[in-house]
């Protein structure tokens, strides 16, 4: 069984048909990159995977999205449970106005965990996992806003990872970062791929090539090609994909 199984998904913003007949299977502990020009539907599709589009007026979905075999749009699914299992990191770092420690502990507390020792050990473990522990271990009580942009983004990744999601969604997680911070986030993605399935939207094609094992190319709401990253960037099957990745679009 695939970790993620998408079948014939169509999505509409009112009359606008934003995603057309999307089919996709993602295996566990893979890093999958979504690429495509602005407005092609890649972020819309990403946000469907933890039901971030539910509250948009006029939004409508047909088809099925299954995670570990369960249809996440089934009425019985609790959204807070879904989002615990499917974490998300956004383009701009968005730490809570709390201390570094409390940012990471937040998800644990929201999920009802009160054991202080467990929370402390989990925060340390998660910050180590996010390659941030050595940089923040002496200032855990300081505001998260005191960190640099790159550190804030890694803190947000740690916050998402603290509740052990089985899928982590990342919407252009390094586009607002300098090359060194970007490199650290990319290393982190590679490290985390041993623990979780990662789906990343990126406009940086070199980044997609570096971090992912499979890449999906979207164009005008359609999934044009979903292939091994190495294959897609050396010898894509579709001419439209080749035109996009070589910069000859339109």
């Amino acid at each position: 069984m695939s970790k993620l199984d998408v079948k014939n998904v169509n999505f509409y913003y009112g009359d606008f048909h934003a995603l057309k007949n999307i089919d996709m299977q993602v295996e566990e502990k893979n890093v999958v990159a979504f690429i495509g020009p602005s407005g092609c539907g890649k972020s819309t599709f990403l946000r469907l995977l933890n039901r971030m589009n539910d509250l948009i007026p006029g939004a409508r979905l047909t088809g099925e999205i299954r995670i570990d075999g369960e249809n996440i749009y089934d009425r019985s699914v609790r959204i807070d449970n879904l989002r615990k299992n499917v974490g998300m990191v956004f383009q701009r770092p968005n730490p809570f106005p709390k201390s570094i420690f409390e940012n990471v502990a937040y998800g644990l507390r929201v999920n009802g965990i009160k054991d202080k020792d467990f929370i402390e050990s989990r925060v340390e473990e998660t910050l180590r996992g996010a390659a941030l522990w050595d940089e923040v271990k002496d200032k855990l009580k300081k505001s998260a806003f005191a960190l640099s942009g790159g550190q804030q983004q890694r803190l947000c990744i740690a916050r998402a990872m603290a509740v052990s999601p089985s899928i982590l969604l990342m919407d252009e997680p390094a586009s607002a970062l300098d090359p060194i911070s970007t490199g650290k986030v990319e290393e982190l993605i590679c490290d985390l791929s041993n623990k979780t399935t990662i789906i990343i939207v990126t406009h940086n094609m070199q980044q997609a090539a570096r971090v992912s094992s499979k890449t999906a190319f979207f164009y005008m709401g359609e999934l044009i090609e979903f292939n091994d990253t190495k294959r897609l960037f050396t010898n894509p099957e579709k001419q439209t994909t080749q035109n996009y990745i070589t910069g000859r679009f339109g």
Partner: protein
Amino acid sequence: MVKFVDSELNSLKKEVNEMWTLVYNQMELSKNAVLNLDKEQADTIIAREKRVNSYDLKIDSDVEDFIALYNPVAIDLRFALSVLNINNNLERIGDYAEGMARYVLRADETPVDKVLFVDLRLEEMFNQTLYMISAAQKAFCEEDIELAKTILEKDNLLDEINADSTRTLSQYTVEHPEMAKRCFELAAVFRKLERTGDHISNIVEEIVFYIDAKVLKHSKKNNLGAQQGA
């Protein structure tokens, strides 16, 4: 961005074409120099070899810049990698033309037996080599995969003439021991032409890789249909 990339690709293609034409001309001059023992043409070849080397360095450097500055992928990356290897093979063919020119400069004025020359099929070998260089250039410029495939088959004739020449020259040396040194040097000319054929085959493999993303290296010659995609 795309305008810059296309402009760089066109510029690289133009440079390789110029290199190709230069190397073809060097080989054509070698043919005339070897068949007529023309030392003046041999001098011209040696003087022009510096231009071949300059093109070699320039193309290498321009491909390096293109990869570093434009991060090419897919067909653009295959083109850049192919140009590097084609350039390298053309440079080696240029070296062989120079080597044959040096043979002409070293050779004494005694004309070689005309019957022997006919038996050796040296002119035919030169003509076949020149055809292969020119056809490969056309296949590259016009991205003509069918033409490229036919060139690989032509290398067999060069191998056959080279093998025959060894037998013919050995026999001739036994019968004319005073011509032994000249025969050994002529055998080296045949080997150079045979090796030129191998380099053209390498170039054709690069053309197929560039256009079709198929890797023919180290596979059985003329077996294009059975190749896996890269």
